């Protein structure tokens, strides 16, 4: 049972973040900007919400909150598809905390630095005498963040962003820019083992996807209530009702799974729960977003309507940090 006091705190925090984003985040403008996100908004989330310092421990001058609090922020950004390096920054802080990288944490908190994590290899990445050579891809907002963490072999490093080549790619998902990063004999500072990085990224994507699925379904249901054809709201047709009900079941399962995964952070269960939660929640978002496009009819196929943004985020989340088919195969092997 959740501690009621913590539950109240998190509810208030959720309301604060939600209001801030509703008042200030303009997704369409942000995604059209060069970096793919609104740097002024990032600065304000740092100043007004304390986002960069959220998971920085108090010993490093931060707010010392836990991953459950971070998940609240990730969910509120995620359900609105706000382009932002917030997800990777929060995950990075959680990892750095576990590795005891206090100096870097202090700088992130103090200067409000944005962070991303380079995981997927574009070309094999090798480390030789503290220098990394290779190439990374699909690094979220990787061309623009202040700090880069790089996974090489079984370890996590940080590199000087001025000593790497960063290329912004036009991503399928307009709300989350992706970069390629070339490293040629780049001096790297060892942070610690990379083991927990993927698990935390999976949990973060699960929380984001479950929240986005919830909002996408709610928006779709609202549309079915107001859109009239054949003289009545189309939401009164049983064929559509039943599809929405099935989606509601998926969303409920995804929300519960993400909730459980967030609480598994820091426990032995994390390694088994995290990839499962990523698969379940991103698949749920994909199902909801795909149906959302269909149920909106022609308007759902327009660039103007947000349905495609959910569809694209869903597909991206299914692929990022290990495709779902790959993860499902690994889960199968563990049986």
């Amino acid at each position, binding site marked *: 049972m959740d501690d009621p006091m913590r539950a109240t705190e998190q509810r208030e925090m959720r309301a604060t973040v939600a209001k801030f984003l509703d008042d200030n985040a303009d997704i369409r403008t942000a995604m059209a900007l060069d970096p793919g996100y609104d740097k002024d908004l990032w600065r304000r989330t740092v100043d007004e919400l304390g986002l960069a310092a959220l998971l920085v421990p108090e010993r490093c001058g931060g707010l010392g909150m836990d991953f459950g609090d971070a998940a609240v922020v990730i969910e509120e950004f995620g359900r609105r598809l706000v382009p932002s390096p917030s997800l990777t920054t929060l995950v990075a802080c959680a990892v750095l905390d576990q590795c005891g990288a206090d100096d870097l944490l202090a700088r992130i908190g103090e200067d409000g630095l944005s962070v991303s994590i380079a995981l997927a290899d574009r070309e094999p990445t090798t480390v030789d005498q503290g220098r990394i050579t290779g190439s990374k891809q699909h690094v979220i907002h990787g061309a623009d963040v202040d700090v880069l963490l790089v996974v090489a072999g079984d370890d996590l490093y940080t590199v000087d962003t001025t000593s790497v080549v960063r290329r912004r790619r036009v991503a399928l998902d307009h709300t989350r820019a992706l970069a390629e990063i070339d490293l040629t004999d780049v001096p790297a500072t060892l942070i610690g083992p990379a083991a927990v990085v993927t698990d935390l990224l999976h949990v973060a994507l699960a929380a984001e996807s479950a929240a986005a699925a919830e909002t996408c379904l709610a928006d779709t249901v609202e549309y079915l209530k107001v859109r009239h054809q054949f003289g009545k709201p189309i939401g009164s047709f049983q064929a559509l009702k*039943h599809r929405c*009900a099935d989606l509601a079941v998926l969303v409920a399962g995804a929300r519960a799974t993400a909730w459980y995964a967030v609480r598994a952070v820091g426990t032995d269960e994390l390694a088994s729960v995290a990839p499962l939660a990523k698969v379940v929640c991103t698949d749920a978002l994909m199902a909801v977003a795909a149906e959302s496009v269909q149920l909106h009819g022609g308007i759902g196929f327009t660039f103007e309507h947000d349905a495609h943004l959910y569809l694209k985020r869903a597909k991206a989340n299914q692929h990022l940090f290990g495709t779902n088919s790959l993860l499902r195969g690994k889960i199968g092997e563990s049986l």
Partner: protein
Amino acid sequence: MTDEEFRAEVRGWLEANLGGDFADVVGAGGPGHEHEAHERRMAWERRLGEAGWIGLGWPVEHGGRGLSLVQQVIFHEECARAGAPGRLGHMSEQLVGPTLLAFGTPEQRARLLPGILSGEVLWCQGYSEPGAGSDLAGVRTRAVRRGDQYEITGQKVWTSLAHLADWCFVLARTDPAESRHRGLSYLLVPMDQPGIEIRPITQITGTSEFNEVFFDGAVTAVDNRIGAEGEGWKVAMATLAFERGVATLGQQVGFERELSAVVELARSTGALDDPELRTRVTEAWIGLKVLRYSAIHTMAAAGVPGVEGSISKLQWAVWHRDLGELAVDVAGSGALVTDGPPYELTDAQRLFLYTRSDTIYGGTNEVQRNIIAERLLGLPR
């Protein structure tokens, strides 16, 4: 008492009793075996009652133990883990009891709750009729008042355990001038009387657990009506909500055991080497985790499930039905023949056939979808 202390107490008691007097009924009466070992399972009900394991969530002043939702679920989990026999008293405890607590008079509670709590009195549910299934408001069974009695005439169907039950809770039309939801009353009817005839129905499993019940001038006292005359619909709806409530939260443990058996079967037949079947086994395993997290999430929210109960019902019913089909598919062509006459099924075959009922009873999937769409999502009728 902490939850873990409570769990230890339940586990200890189950070990002592299922390892002793009741060793013969371990695993009896589970899904697909619900027609078995009735006499011994009635004895198990009485043993549960003696030890105070019935009415765990009921208020203390009504003979219950006032335990939390979490502890009630722990009890169901431990029973499943220990292979405790399938309950015969679930309708008594989970449906009639809560209905009496919510709508019964003090006299009715005092008279009827003790028999449920002691496990001695068995109840069955008289809702569905040949012409009133998902559309329950189409009930046509008539109850005519004569003095201080009702005379009941009509037919009920799919009545589980009617042949064993002492009482039936019947939804009957007391005002023929009214239609649909109005003019219905909720009557408790003693089963042992000449006006009632019970005919078993053979299920697709070849066995028989449910029945047709014919009422031909059967009688019950006016005192056995719950709620006001004509208010039966409200009471019946509340009972259905109880049906989708607590009891299912603890069933994951039983599901886990069934899935483990399917995985073992798949290993032994080589089905795990088949990519398609392997994917389906993995999906089943992931689905079970989602069921588990959903149950825990519901409990943490600390509410007794309302409309969310429909989500849970749809979620687990589909999962369980798919598991049944997966079981015969991993069994391979061996599933084509039974263990012998008259129609002795393997566990896989039994699960395949039995789970077809999960998506029908207690509100079909289609009715659950309507409830979710209209009451949870607010889509127009």
